[in-house]
């Protein structure tokens, strides 16, 4: 058990180190540097030199990498070029807002997906399953920027039930943000739930046809008991890693959904930072996204390990 645990954590660490290296050197390969990109057309030589000196861009790349990675490890994310403020401060509020949105999405989306997935899986090819699966496939194929825009069109412009675009600021109280998160969260839930429920459905169908369920049925175990004690525990285990992966996908999803709904989170900040050509900020957000992705997956892995004894021993 301990070795498996250490192995997973070790792998996650290695992945994170690779992310750090890739994020730094990928931006290094781009034409120009943070200063020339940020100052753009109006850059005079003296302005450029002053900026490069301020950011230490006149140093060799490897040396800068060491300094940057070191700062990052100690929690110093650097200074945003465009905003001229510490990145930790710029990112902090947005991270909170994105967590609110992602939390709301997960809190509603995951139980909803599990429930619908089980329902569909227990009655495969029935009218209920056809409806649920049909909607799920639709949700999976329509990109977020379209479903988000349609949501606004329907609920805000046509029906007038909810404000379409989030107009409160990034420092707004958490409760206000939660209220403003309804449409963006609905858009994310729509897609997130679709992915998870498709997996759960397949898993339930598979377990229902397994030998031990057949056996239980032949022995006359009541249907209710078969479902609750034999099918669900076995069918929902694989869902954990899928939930982990889907939550990680959510990070990519928020980039688009936040932009469509003007939600003041990390995803919109990422888009803004790219548009503003604020390279230090882009680097920091890329790293954050990478780390959250790895950590979410690690969490799902560890949870699966705890719940599923079969995973704990290595097969030779």
């Amino acid at each position, binding site marked *: 058990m301990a070795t498996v645990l250490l192995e997973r954590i070790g792998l996650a660490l290695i992945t994170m180190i690779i992310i750090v290296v890739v994020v730094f050197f990928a931006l290094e390969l*781009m*034409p*120009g540097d943070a200063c*020339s*990109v940020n100052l*753009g*057309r*109006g850059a*005079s030589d003296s*302005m450029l030199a002053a900026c490069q000196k301020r950011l230490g861009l006149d140093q060799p790349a490897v040396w800068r990498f060491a300094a940057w990675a070191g700062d990052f490890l100690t929690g110093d994310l650097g200074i945003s070029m*465009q*905003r*001229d403020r510490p990145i930790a401060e*710029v990112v902090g509020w947005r991270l909170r807002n994105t967590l609110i949105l992602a939390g709301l999405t997960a809190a509603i989306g995951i139980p909803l997906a599990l429930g619908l997935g089980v329902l569909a899986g227990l009655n495969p090819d029935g009218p209920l399953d056809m409806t649920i699966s049909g909607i799920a496939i639709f949700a999976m194929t329509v990109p977020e*920027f379209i479903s988000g*825009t349609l949501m*606004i*069109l329907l609920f*805000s*412009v046509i029906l007038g039930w909810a*404000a*379409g*675009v989030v*107009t*409160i*600021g*990034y*420092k*707004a*109280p*958490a*409760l*206000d943000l939660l209220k403003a998160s309804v449409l963006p969260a609905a858009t994310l839930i729509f897609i997130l739930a679709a992915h998870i429920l498709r997996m759960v459905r397949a898993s339930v169908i598979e377990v229902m046809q397994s030998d031990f369920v057949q056996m239980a049925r032949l022995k006359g175990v009541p249907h209710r008991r078969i479902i609750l004690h034999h099918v669900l525990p076995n069918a929902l285990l694989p869902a954990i890693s899928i939930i982990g992966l889907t939550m990680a996908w959510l990070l990519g999803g928020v980039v688009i959904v936040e*932009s*469509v*709904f*003007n939600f*003041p989170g990390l995803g*919109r900040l990422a*888009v*803004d*930072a790219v*548009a*503003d*050509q*604020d390279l230090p900020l882009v680097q920091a957000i890329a790293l954050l996204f990478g780390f959250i992705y790895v950590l979410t997956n690690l969490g799902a892995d560890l949870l699966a390990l705890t719940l599923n004894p079969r995973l704990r021993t290595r097969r030779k």
Partner: protein
Amino acid sequence: MKFKLHAKLVATPLVVFMTIASAAQADTVLRRANDLSFGGSESLDPISANRFYEVNDLIYSRLIRQDENGRPASELAQTWKANETATEWTLTLQPGVIFHDGSTFDAADVKFTLERIKDPALESPVTDVLGLIEAVDVVDPLTARIRLSTPHAGLPLLLMDYRVRILPEGAAAPFGIGTGPFMLDSYDPESTTILNANTAYWEGIPKLDRIEFTAIPNSEARNQAMLGGQIDYNGLTRDQEPLYAGNSAFTVQSYPAGGWFGIAFQCNQPPLDDPRIRKALRIAVDRADMLALMSGEGNGIVSCDTPVKASDPFRATLDCPQDIAGAKALLADAGYPDGIDIEVFTADLEPGMVQYAEVYQQQVAEAGIRVKLTVAPSDGYFDDVWLKKNAVTSWSQRPADQFLNEAYRSGAAWNESHFANAAFDTLLDQARATLDIEKARTLYVQAQEILFNEGGTLIAYQENGRRVMSARVTGIAAQDEDYIRWHMVGMEQ
């Protein structure tokens, strides 16, 4: 600790919100979007490179503004007069104007504002326009004398620059005190900025009680906010326009603006050092067709390679229909009877920049001009391509004198086509020293004719700006934002 913080965070805005909500019924509020083009570093310093123009326009006044024909009109300066050599300008100022903090506007504020432009520590882009101001003398509280380092008859036109806004003497960061129709209430470019009516505004009490700016960086999200009635005033792109067509809840306006795309051909690189070839490359273009394709019929004005906008009193009105035969003849003359190969670079920096080059490529093919089109990476385009290659370029409006000097005078830093013509430079010098506005106009027009005949930059048209407003908004004519008299703008209930 965290809990306490949150309780506070919830409580204060809630109180504020309730206060605003109870007052809202009586107030007329215009809600606008801030596109965050400076990513949160928007500055209330009007001459900063990151000036928050939309807000500065409301809280500050200029000395001189433009009338509907683009001519200088009185704002904080009542009258202006030059000495015979146009090296000294004397301005008499509007009496009885007070700043938002209650202090009185006088010549010392003019001196402070104008001399500040040259402060090297600020690195203000306005130096390019008004760097020629040597000093300002306070003659008496309502008279200021501006001394120039070189003669300039067009100083009033330069003072119309949208960034030259009067600050109170000694103003410092974060700024925000002006003499304009609206006063700053709260300022946060990344979320909400609120401006209240200045009831002591010297031209009359504003009709609106408040103007609010909400940060919405994404163009599509701004559009959705407009459609959903969350904002009342917004810029509009061509492809968004049909969404509002025939909807009586909205007013859509298309107004002359001065921005353009162009292709800067390098006049110093053979074979383009031959002006005949440069002219052939430009007259082979069907400008009206290109305008219709790129911007939609009637949404701009054809330009015969003049960078000057339609509302500028010094714009040359030339005629330049597509001339395939003429282009072929010029090429043959220059030794290319079988046509010529030209490489043009562009980048996907702004929507339309790639298409502009593509339309060009198609249109001139008939004249035997074979364009090899290269789409360069957007990053580093201005470092690696611009000023070095034949490249698609993009400019925003500026006054004629500034444009012609900045982009075409021999050796100017942003002379992107490396155009060098002594006669052209002389005309600009003469125009600057000519106080008679009609005579000056003749000189500027001649300079633009030289550009059409020998220049290296293709400018097919100037595209209109577009905006959409709630149909309840009153007092905004189909003109550039610069012209809007904000204290006259209202909202029907």
